[in-house]
Each structure stands twice: as C-alpha cells, then as structure tokens.
C-alpha cells in the first residue's frame, strides 16, 4: 500500500493458475500486406508474463488517488432486509465520474497508449459505463476518444452519451452505418455489444494514430481491476471481517476478477483454502452456467484472435435487458480457465431478481446500485440466506457493487411498475449458436458443489 491507502501494485493471478492459459488462435483471415501491432507491449507483458506484482505507474496512481481507496463496509441494514445468516460486506466502486469500476483500467490503458504515441482511442460500450470511463481517462491524459455505444442503451440512457460528450468524446450510436461491419450487420443476428466493439475495431484499423481498446475481458484489464480486491482484503482485515464467499457481476469478467482473484492469490500464496469465488451473470447471457468452453470470437468482425472461453456463441442474439454491461456472449479467458478448473463458481440471476436486490440495497443502505451490480447483490443475498445452486456461505459474504444506478432509474421505474419480464435462452437456440465452435479443452468436469468455502 502507498501512504494514501491506495495499493502501489496490481496483483496478477497468472502465477497462481494451476495450468497455463490456452493459447489464442489466429483468425482465418491473416493480413496480406504486413503486420501491425496495436497494443502497447506493456499490456502484452501484463497479459502473458507470470509475474505477480506490477507497480502502478505514478501518473495512474495519482489519478487513482482522486477516488481511491473506495469504501467497504458491513451492510448490516441490508443483512436485516434479506434475513442474512452471516455478515455481508459491500465494496462500492460507483464513486467516480464514470460511476463504475471501469475507470480503474481506463486510466491505466489511456496512460500506456499515450506513452506509445497513440493520439485517439476508440471503443465499443454497452451500458455506457466503459465508454464514460474511457472518455474520462482520455480527457485526463490528453487523448481523443470515440465511442460506439449500443443503440438500445443510448436510447434508454441518453445522459450517458451527454456525459461522454462533456468529457470530450465523440459518441456514435451502433449500428452506426459508418463501418463495413455495421453495414453487413443483419439486425436479427449477433449481439449488440460485440457489434459495437466490432465497429470500434474496424474504425481503429482504418484510421492512423487511433487504437482500439477494450474495457473488460482482457487479462491486463483484470490485472488493473485487482486494485479492488487488494484494497478489500486490507479493509476486511481492518474490520476483522471474515468471508467465505466473494461475489461480483460477470459481463466479461473484469469486475468479478478484480474483486475475487486477489483472494485466490493470497490463499494460493499461503497454501490455504480460498473463499468461494462466485460470478453472478445474467440469465439472458448465461455463459458460465450454460455455455460451452470453446474457442470463440471476441467481437463481430472476427479479425481478432479466437480465445478459449465459456461462451453462448458470439452469434447468439442475446435478449434485450437493462443490464447491458452483462450482455456479452463470453467470459474472459482467465475467468473461463479458472471456471474450467473448478476454481470459480457461478450463478445466473434474472433481471427482476437483480433489480429487487438493488431496491433492497437502496432502501436499506441508501446506496443506489447499477442493475449489473444488482446481479451480484442478488447472488450474495442467496449465498447469505438459504443458498442456491448448491452454494451457501457460512462465515460471511463480500460483494462488489461495481457501479451506481443514477442513470438506470428508467429500469427501476419499469421494475417498480411491474413492467419487466425475464427472458432466458432456449436450449435449442444455445446449442445452435455454439454448434460450430471448436472445444477448448477436455469436457468440463466441475467439482461437486460445495456448501462452504475457506476463510478469507
């Protein structure tokens, strides 16, 4: 820790994986006129080298110091509201300009890209939290910023777009019609976030001085998010708090990885039993609970490498839902590999369950959680009460509230009015979406469900 209470290093889980990550696979369409590198080498090193501690650059540490350490508290009123048997600790990441944890990696990435000589960053965003975070980071480091935002999200949350523009970013509704991938897009196919990302990839590939960057899923972004779990470990120790379950929401996995993986590292380092690490995903995109472990695309262009991931198929049309940040077909490769090895548990949570958990947190703790975070809260509530999916906490639960919900009040309004319905993928639709994928490993052999994890 630095003198400010902000960790001085990120912590990588790579040295503590029981197996190395499966190698990425090149897409079928290699370039024909030379090769290009669009990722700073330091981010590549952070993704592949089995080095545990990575010093946080001074400029990034200073930026972190504006909003970190983020609060962690025992949510006694929430415990009462849900009838909890065990203590529930909340780590809150919504208290910065972007309103979510995404700023933790946006700042780091903007710093490294700026150092590499890039002038503009371009990205795709679902709920808009990542787009806002990147816009803020670019503003801080003097970079241009262009954001392709999923059209349905931008329509629902126009003020996300306004905030990004206030931060100097150019915001485009996706499908934009400006890129080949959007022109080729069949509106009945594919998922909207992967299309927005695909548009950003294509834009970056065709504009000099511009680089594409991504907010979740990459191993380096999960490394940057480790600051959440490192802080939480220290804060829990300061409260003499003990938990046997750590919960975060999973879109691609950076928030979950950020809160949970440092606990895996510390347990592995001390050769003790880790707490249950539980990823809370949306029933609309249930890659960890109903997906397959296979090589799949990370975006709609298919020009990037194929990664070994738990996926419901990159072409699967994910039903519309308010938690746009969770509407992604695949989990990060490091999260997927750990799930495949049985180091990570998962629960699928419906939209109405998530918003009800968010309502309970609002009324009990006066903290308004984003719908994505509501999934983690609902899973934490299940673990802390009757248990679910064979999982139950016996000592305590740590849950990360990844962001605030002030720009999601339309979702809560619909929920309070009883206007929301849940939609989960049909089995035959999932099977069709993954039928052409190459398996990434031996058939999944998840361990028997446990009812208790080890102490943190």
């Amino acid at each position, binding site marked *: 820790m630095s003198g400010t209470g902000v960790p001085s290093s990120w912590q990588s889980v790579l040295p503590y994986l029981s197996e190395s990550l499966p190698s990425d696979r090149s897409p079928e369409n290699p370039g024909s006129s*030379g*090769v290009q*590198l*669009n990722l*700073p*080498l330091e981010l590549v090193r952070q993704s592949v080298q089995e080095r545990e501690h990575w010093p946080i650059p001074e400029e990034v540490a200073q930026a972190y110091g504006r909003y970190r350490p983020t609060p962690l508290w025992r949510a006694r009123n929430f415990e009462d509201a849900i009838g909890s048997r065990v203590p529930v600790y909340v780590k809150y990441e919504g208290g910065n300009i972007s309103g979510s944890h995404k700023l933790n990696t946006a700042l780091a990435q903007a710093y490294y890209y700026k150092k*590499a*000589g890039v002038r503009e960053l371009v990205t795709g965003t679902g709920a808009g939290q990542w787009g806002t975070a990147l816009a803020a980071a670019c503003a801080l480091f003097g970079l241009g910023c262009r954001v392709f935002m999923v059209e349905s999200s931008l329509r629902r949350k126009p003020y996300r777009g306004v905030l990004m523009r206030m931060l100097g970013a150019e915001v485009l509704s996706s499908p934009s019609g400006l890129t080949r991938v959007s022109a080729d897009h069949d509106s009945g196919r594919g998922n909207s976030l992967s299309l927005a990302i695909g548009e950003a990839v294509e834009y970056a590939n065709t504009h000099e001085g511009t680089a594409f960057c991504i907010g979740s899923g990459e191993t380096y972004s999960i490394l940057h998010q480790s600051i959440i779990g490192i802080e939480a470990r220290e804060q829990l120790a300061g409260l003499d708090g003990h938990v046997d379950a750590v919960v975060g929401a999973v879109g691609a996995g950076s928030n979950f990885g950020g809160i949970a993986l440092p606990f895996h590292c510390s347990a592995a380092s001390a050769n003790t039993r880790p707490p249950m690490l539980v990823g809370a995903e949306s029933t609309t995109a249930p890659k960890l609970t109903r997906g397959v472990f296979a090589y799949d695309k990370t975006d709609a262009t298919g020009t990037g490498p194929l990664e070994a991931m738990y996926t419901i198929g990159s072409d699967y049309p994910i039903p519309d839902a308010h938690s746009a940040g969770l509407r992604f077909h695949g989990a990060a490769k490091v999260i997927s590999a750990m799930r495949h090895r049985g180091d990570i548990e998962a629960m699928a949570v419906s939209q109405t369950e998530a918003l009800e958990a968010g309502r309970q947190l609002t009324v009990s703790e006066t903290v308004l959680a984003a719908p994505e975070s509501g999934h983690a809260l609902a899973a934490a509530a299940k673990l802390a009460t009757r248990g679910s999916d064979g999982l139950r906490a016996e000592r305590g639960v740590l849950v990360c509230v990844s962001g605030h919900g002030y720009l999601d009040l339309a979702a809560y309004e619909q929920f309070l009015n009883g206007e929301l319905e849940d939609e989960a993928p049909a089995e035959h639709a999932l099977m069709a979406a993954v039928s052409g994928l190459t398996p990434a490993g031996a058939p999944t052999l998840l361990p028997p469900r446990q009812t208790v994890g080890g102490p943190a």
Partner: protein
Amino acid sequence: MSTTEQLDRATVAEAVKRVVIAESKLSITVSEITEQEPLVGDRLRLNSLGLLGMLLRIEDELSVVLSDDLFVGRKFHVVADLVDVVLKGSEAR
C-alpha cells in the same frame, strides 16, 4: 556502419529470423531467409497475434526491453523492418 554496429545488427537479425521462423513453424535455418523476406508471404506467415508474442521472445533473447512508441500503429512488411526497429529500441537503452 562501424564493426560494432554490424555485429549488433547481425546479432539482432539472427534473433529476429530465429523467432519469425519459429512463429511460422518452418524447419529452415536463419541463413535461408534474407532481411528482405516478406513477413506475410510464401514462407513466413506472421499475423498481429504472432507479432506480439514474438516481440516478447526477442526481448528475452536479446535481454532488452523494447519501447512501446516504436511499435504501436506501425506496419512491418519485411524482416529488415523488424530488425531496424529492434536495433533502434536496443540503442535507446
């Protein structure tokens, strides 16, 4: 070019050729390709993904740390392009 520079270039060129051959999964020696060999051609078949891992292996082989501003956004066509930029990065140490 001085003798020292020639030696340095030879060392770097050999290391670069060794890793591009390995990346292209070829069973040939470094003397069988020239610095004008296309990185994406009949023999070498590099892509961006391979380039990333390759640069880290070159760092290991030559015990150098390559600077990001030498690579990002730049396109590499032949072996010599890589040798030049690695040399430039090494000289900057």
